[in-house]
């Protein structure tokens, strides 16, 4: 057996000093040579542990072998047969806890950089096969059945693509003016260029999926009205779009944003190009971001790029418990984001113009583990201190928007507002209705939503053909 190569090929990135001032993508992607070199490290295990680690079951060793052989069109074909959104997944999936965690070489702490290779294949296709990247391989035989997909985020796009590939008629109903959901309004340009999202949306449309924008289901039509329009089934993939706040004093001061609002203004409405684009966004000199997840990192790094002098991540637990991807925490640190850990706001202070001037915070310490298994943060009595800020972004997480559940008879929801659905099939208690992604789990990851979309399609297909 050949000697194991444990040298992961690094992916070039923009210099931290430069990238903190622009919205261009941070990671620059492999060259063909780098991709081939990394692909050549794959030992093509008989037992494909990496595939079991992938929520959508991509045939990982096969597309890696194709890269190694230099057969890029074949790599594209293999990848896209299971994953309609490879350019997106290659960028934002937490591979380190999925396929790369189960990679045999992970035991030697040098898993194959599957995410970087996936990204490379998607980018290669867009650059070299522009026609193919937006046209489907072959039209399947129409089933004569129609499915409505509500929401065009990762769950909805995946479900729509897979349903269309099975020959079902698919219409996506999207509330915003552009398809992509959180991929468009949430994740910033420097982590996921919008052009790539739109290219993959175009691919899904090329499979025969109709996309209706500006269509707020629950307002424009209820689920039952949609079913009455001739759809045989509905897949709900509306995500978790409702921002959570701290519910403390001063939270409605000017200059305090939910991360959803801040990121929507910056990413979806392109406020970083104001006044060329009409939507403005305020950026302070000292910005406090509350939370320790990926959305908090995205918000902090956007604020930095928009010109803030000091950006603080204010998080109530310690570094170890931060839910953000390690890579994003490191990126943020490199760019100069300051971490105020074991710190939790008590209230916000404002001036006579109702503008925020400070976050009064408690110092925290870690106690016994809580339900999440992480050590519970406990307030240190009398530890209050003020962090001077002129802008605050609250990134505490999101819950599902009740617009649909509150207008639908027969849908069961939890106390967190999530829709109750079977974990394996996505089937809800309502006839003909499936759900998957953040609307079921609460805020999670792009790929887990895609996996849920895929599993629901298997169940919907069985139902439609039953």
């Amino acid at each position, binding site marked *: 057996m050949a000697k194991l190569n444990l040298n992961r090929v690094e992916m070039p990135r923009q210099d931290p000093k430069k990238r903190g001032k622009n919205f261009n993508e941070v990671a620059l992607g492999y060259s063909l040579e780098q991709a081939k070199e990394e692909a050549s490290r794959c030992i093509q295990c008989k037992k494909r542990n990496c595939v079991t680690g992938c929520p959508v079951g991509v045939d990982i060793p096969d597309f890696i072998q194709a890269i190694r052989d230099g057969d890029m069109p074949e790599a594209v074909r293999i990848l896209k047969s299971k994953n309609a959104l490879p350019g997106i997944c290659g960028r934002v999936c937490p591979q380190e806890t999925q396929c790369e965690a189960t990679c045999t070489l992970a035991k030697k702490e040098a898993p194959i950089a599957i995410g970087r290779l996936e990204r490379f294949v998607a980018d290669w296709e867009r650059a070299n096969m522009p026609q193919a990247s937006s046209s489907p391989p072959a039209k399947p035989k129409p089933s004569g059945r129609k499915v409505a997909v509500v929401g065009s985020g990762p769950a909805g796009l995946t479900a729509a693509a897979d349903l269309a590939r099975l020959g079902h008629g698919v219409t996506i109903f999207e509330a915003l003016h552009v398809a992509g959901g959180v991929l468009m309004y949430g994740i910033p340009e420097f982590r996921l260029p919008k052009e790539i999202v739109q290219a993959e949306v175009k691919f899904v449309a090329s499979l025969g999926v109709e996309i209706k924008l500006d269509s707020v289901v629950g307002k424009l039509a209820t689920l039952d009205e949609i079913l009455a329009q001739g759809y045989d089934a509905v897949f709900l993939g509306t995500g978790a779009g409702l921002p959570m706040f701290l519910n403390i004093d001063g939270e409605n001061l000017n200059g305090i944003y939910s991360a959803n609002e801040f990121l929507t203004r910056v990413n979806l409405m392109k406020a970083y190009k104001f006044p060329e684009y009409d*939507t403005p966004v305020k950026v302070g000199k000292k910005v406090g971001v509350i939370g320790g997840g990926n959305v908090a990192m995205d918000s902090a790094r956007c604020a930095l790029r928009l010109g803030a002098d000091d950006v603080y991540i204010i998080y109530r637990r310690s570094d170890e418990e931060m839910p953000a991807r390690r890579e994003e925490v490191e990126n943020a640190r490199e760019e100069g984001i300051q971490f105020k850990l074991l710190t939790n706001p008590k209230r916000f202070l404002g001036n006579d113009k109702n503008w925020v001037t400070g976050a009064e915070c408690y110092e925290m310490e870690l106690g016994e583990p809580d339900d999440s298994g992480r050590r519970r943060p406990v307030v240190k009595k009398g530890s209050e201190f003020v962090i001077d800020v002129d802008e605050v972004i609250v990134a505490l997480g999101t819950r599902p928007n009740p617009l649909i559940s509150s207008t639908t008879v027969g849908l069961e929801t939890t106390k967190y507002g999530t829709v109750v659905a079977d974990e394996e099939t996505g089937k809800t208690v309502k006839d003909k209705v499936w759900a998957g992604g953040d609307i079921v789990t609460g805020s999670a990851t792009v790929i887990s939503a895609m996996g849920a979309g895929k599993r629901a399609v298997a169940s919907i297909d069985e139902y439609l053909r039953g």
Partner: protein
Amino acid sequence: MYKILVREDLVPSVHLFKMAAPAVAAKAQAGQFVVVRIDERGERIPLTIADWDKNAGTVTIVFMEVGATTARLALLREGDAIADFVGPLGVPTHIENFGTVVCVAGGVGAALVAPVARALKNAGNKIITILGARSKDLLFWEDVLSGVSDQLIVTTDDGSYGRKGVVTEPLKEILESGEKIDRVVAIGPVVMMKFCSLATAPSGVRTIVSLNPIMVDGTGMCGCCRVSVGGETKFACVDGPDFDGHKVDWELLAARQRIYIDEEKCAYEEWRKSHAA
């Protein structure tokens, strides 16, 4: 794209567009709004639905030129189209037979009160409408409101038409006249809605106001439009826009409406310069 079928200039700075939007028209109810975006670079702004026709598939919006977006909108002509017209959003105004309802309309609010007054009238209420404007040349829809009211009182700040003064004066008189008033609906500028609510507070007559904070998506996603009502934070886009005027934190609303005042000026100036060129 959504086509402008009819354009009317109600007064020099207030315009009416009748839009082709059959799906929205089919579901629209009094008190709801739409979010409008002109084109790729445009911002999303909420505009209240002034009228709709399910059969014709049209929805009417009325807007005042106050900044870059509304000024750009005002340049559009019949046959032009806008990129996005999303709705109907918000909770419809609560309509039932209350008895006698006073509807107060200030400025552009005239167009927003009209569908509410009509729905209340159709539900069997006696409608007394007070229509106020700064002066005669800013007054519109007197005829429309007259058609849906049992009694119409017109005021102008400068006395150039109708009664001289502001809308709260006749409102107070009606409340003090001894006639049983069961509800007040006030729609217009923040300061007008605030003073109407203050005027009705002593009598305790339930007073409904339609709030217009800054919004982005209009579907509960961003929280930009949060208002404080009875000490609780609400999102005007999904919990409102109608709220109990006696419980609204008016100072907070006014302050939050000023968040982007510098940017709005900058955008308006930019637009004026480019438009002049």
